[in-house]
């Protein structure tokens, strides 16, 4: 293994930044595209993560309700409950007895006229309405679970909120699809622009490269400044949007919380640190990665050393 001198590393880093400076216009275009790419990624991520969180919260409220045959024993109900709990897609199973069902109904239906419900004290109209409320990990699994539940002995009826489940699931999928497609297009544009910048840099330094090769520069020495250039463009292009996003996210949070107080019940933001814990490494890896790949690809094509 050959060791690299510190002075060689600093020289090549210096040359990389000089390349950016010499080639200002192209470098600026690349940094701007990278900034746009990472900014949109961050924006999509922030919106997506918050929306997913909201969808997830909504999903938690979506339940499948299982009603039993008349005359079923508590033991049989318990057995059904145990079978349901074994299913992987089931997050939680809550037993609602006939009394609890009636209490809950009473509160909603006879609100303000509670005396009207007193006539039913010893005659629960919902006597056959004991049920299991089943909450899922993923609402897209709902229909298969319902089919299973309907096949169980002792089950009279299964209620489900099919439309809600499918809509939520579809919206989630659609957001992910748009998100991924958009990011792929942006990455391709960013790589293309970085590649153009490096190609121009190689053309500008053609004579210098030729002399370096004749003097006896190693391939890695000739390539290093261009790799540094690509990575630096990627790095600058990911730090700028991260700073913009940080200020934007905080401002939007404050603005929405202050101006739309009525929305805060169901519009809760994921805290800044939770978003940026993911976004910072993601943006940096992507920025540096795109810069590296863009320059590496170009060097392979245009710099035969």
């Amino acid at each position: 293994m050959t060791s690299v001198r510190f002075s060689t590393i600093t020289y090549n880093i210096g040359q990389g930044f000089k390349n950016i400076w010499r080639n200002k216009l192209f470098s600026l275009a690349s940094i701007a595209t990278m900034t746009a790419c990472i900014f949109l990624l961050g924006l999509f991520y922030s919106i997506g993560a918050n929306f997913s969180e909201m969808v997830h919260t909504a999903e938690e409220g979506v339940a499948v309700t299982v009603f039993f045959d008349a005359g079923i024993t508590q033991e049989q109900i318990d057995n059904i409950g145990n079978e349901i709990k074994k299913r992987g897609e089931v997050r939680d199973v809550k037993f609602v007895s006939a009394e609890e069902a009636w209490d809950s109904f009473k509160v909603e239906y006879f609100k303000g006229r509670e005396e009207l419900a007193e006539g039913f004290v010893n005659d629960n109209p919902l006597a056959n309405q004991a049920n299991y409320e089943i909450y899922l990990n993923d609402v897209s699994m709902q229909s298969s679970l319902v089919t299973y539940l309907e096949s169980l002995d002792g089950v009279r009826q299964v209620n489900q909120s099919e439309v809600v489940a499918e809509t939520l699931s579809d919206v989630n999928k659609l957001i992910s699809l748009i998100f991924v497609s958009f990011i792929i297009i942006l990455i391709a544009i960013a790589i293309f622009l970085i590649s153009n910048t490096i190609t121009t840099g190689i053309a500008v330094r053609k004579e210098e490269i030729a002399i370096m090769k004749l003097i006896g520069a190693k391939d890695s020495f000739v390539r290093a400044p261009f790799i540094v250039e690509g990575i630096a463009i990627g790095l600058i292009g990911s730090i700028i949007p991260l700073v913009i996003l940080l200020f934007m996210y905080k401002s939007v949070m404050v603005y929405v919380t202050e101006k739309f107080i009525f929305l805060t019940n169901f519009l809760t933001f994921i805290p800044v640190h939770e978003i940026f814990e993911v976004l910072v490494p993601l943006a940096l890896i992507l920025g540096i990665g795109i810069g590296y790949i863009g320059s590496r690809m170009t060097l392979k094509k245009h710099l035969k050393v």
Partner: protein
Amino acid sequence: MIKLEHVSKLYQEGVPALDDVSINIEKGEFVFIMGKSGSGKSTLIKLLLKELTPTEGEIYISGKKLSKINHKAIPNFRRNIGVVFQNFRLLQDRNVYENVAFAMKVVEAPTREIKKRVPLMLSLVNLAAKYKSLPRQLSGGEQQRVAIARALVNEPEILLADEPTGNLDDTNAWEIMRLLEEINERGTTVVVVTHNAEIVRKMNKRVIYIKRGQVVGDGKWGDISEI
């Protein structure tokens, strides 16, 4: 030091640029390679630097068979050969000192070695006082001296000079030739490619004359001037 055994180089056009050339240059020699343009001189330089591979034959430099040097080993091989060109090929955005230091940075020499060697080389080519000047602020002769300093700073065993006086007036041309002679006297093998008969005649060194890709004469000027 430099040995060519039946070397031929055929480009795609079909006409051989070099045709069955055999040359032997000893360590410490000063040799002119002469010939008109298109005679194959540039091809010979490129072959010696392993920029090109011969179609036939074998080249040995410092005992190394060039066909056995793989791509990865080329940089180390080239560090043993200093090259000077007709058009100097200096980096225009760097001053005299930086141009010479560049050659050492490229071979990853330690900084303190660069600081020690570059001023020595600039003294040798008599340009110590102009170390801060940019190439465009120098005369042609001075620029060529910077190029020679750059070629020698890594202490190569061989110095290849491709038409080093081609862009210079007589006074500057002679200064450069005297400098090359001095370098040769210090032990470096010097190979000068030129078509300047006047210089070759006056220098009275060994001359290898190439015509249409073939060696048609090898000896002192008096021996080959008839050709």
